[in-house]
């Protein structure tokens, strides 16, 4: 018999910690991927590393007792989300710029319709950059944002 109004599901803390754990897995997986791709040629390629550092800091903030770091963690996660969108756009642009280098399109690239060129770049038909790979950063940031929903808040202790 469960009294009315009392939650019987898993503790909210369990779900929150699960989301934080998935965030940590995402950070480690993205770092491994970047490392294996030698993703450090130039300042632009360091952006995802900075985003990962921010996401790691945000993860630590979420775990702070009393929920005192939740606000800052959300701001950092939103920044990472922005970096993720930037990465996807940047990868598409890199592929777009590589169109004339591809022997299949070297002579015809400029004559192709704009939408066709963009589609070829976005679908990695031309160019070396994986277009959706930076999206993993955004996805991981979203996981962390979800983990902050319903996070414990520091409350003033009532006297007496």
């Amino acid at each position: 018999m469960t009294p009315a109004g009392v939650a019987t599901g898993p503790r909210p803390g369990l779900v929150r910690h699960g989301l934080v754990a998935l965030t940590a897995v995402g950070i480690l997986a993205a770092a491994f991927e970047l490392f294996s791709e030698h993703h450090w040629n130039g300042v632009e390629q360091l952006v995802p590393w900075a985003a990962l550092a921010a996401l790691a800091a945000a993860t630590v903030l979420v775990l702070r007792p009393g929920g005192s770091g939740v606000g800052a963690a959300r701001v950092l996660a939103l920044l990472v989300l922005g970096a993720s969108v930037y990465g996807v756009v940047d990868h598409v642009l890199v592929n777009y710029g590589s169109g004339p280098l591809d022997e299949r399109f070297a002579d015809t690239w400029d004559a192709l319709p704009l939408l066709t060129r963009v589609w070829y770049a976005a679908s990695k038909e031309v160019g070396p950059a994986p277009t959706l790979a930076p999206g993993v950063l955004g996805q991981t940031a979203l996981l962390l944002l979800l983990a902050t929903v319903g996070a414990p808040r520091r409350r003033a202790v009532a006297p007496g």
Partner: protein
Amino acid sequence: MTRTLPRLTAACGAALLSVGLVACGSSTATSPGTPATAPVQSEIATAPPADDATDGATADEDDPDDSGDGGTATAVAGDGAADKVSANTASEDEIAQALTAAGVSNPARWAEEVVEYRPYPADDPDLTKLRKNLAKYNPGQETTDEIVSALTP
């Protein structure tokens, strides 16, 4: 009801992460072990200015010996069209000029790629590392050979 929502949230998060990681892995599977991106450049130069290469101050002089004995300094002078430049130490403009002389189209763009993937092993005159990286752009064997023919490690 109170049980379902957190479980759904966690399941969706896990599924999204898995899909993302799979997408990330598969999209790079065609070029393992190579950098994922290159600098953005929407302008495609057709030929570099002939006198750009006189500005030797822009050459990367800080890593001449990264990959072995530093026998190749900046350029290997020959006579006529057989001039080769060092892929490790020549400036981007010098490389572009050498590629132009070798008949490579888009020489400035290729020179940028050559500089990006430095350093190259000094004991590999065929520039295997460069060939591997250029292959990501699908330039074709002829273009790759033309590029490499203008360069030395």
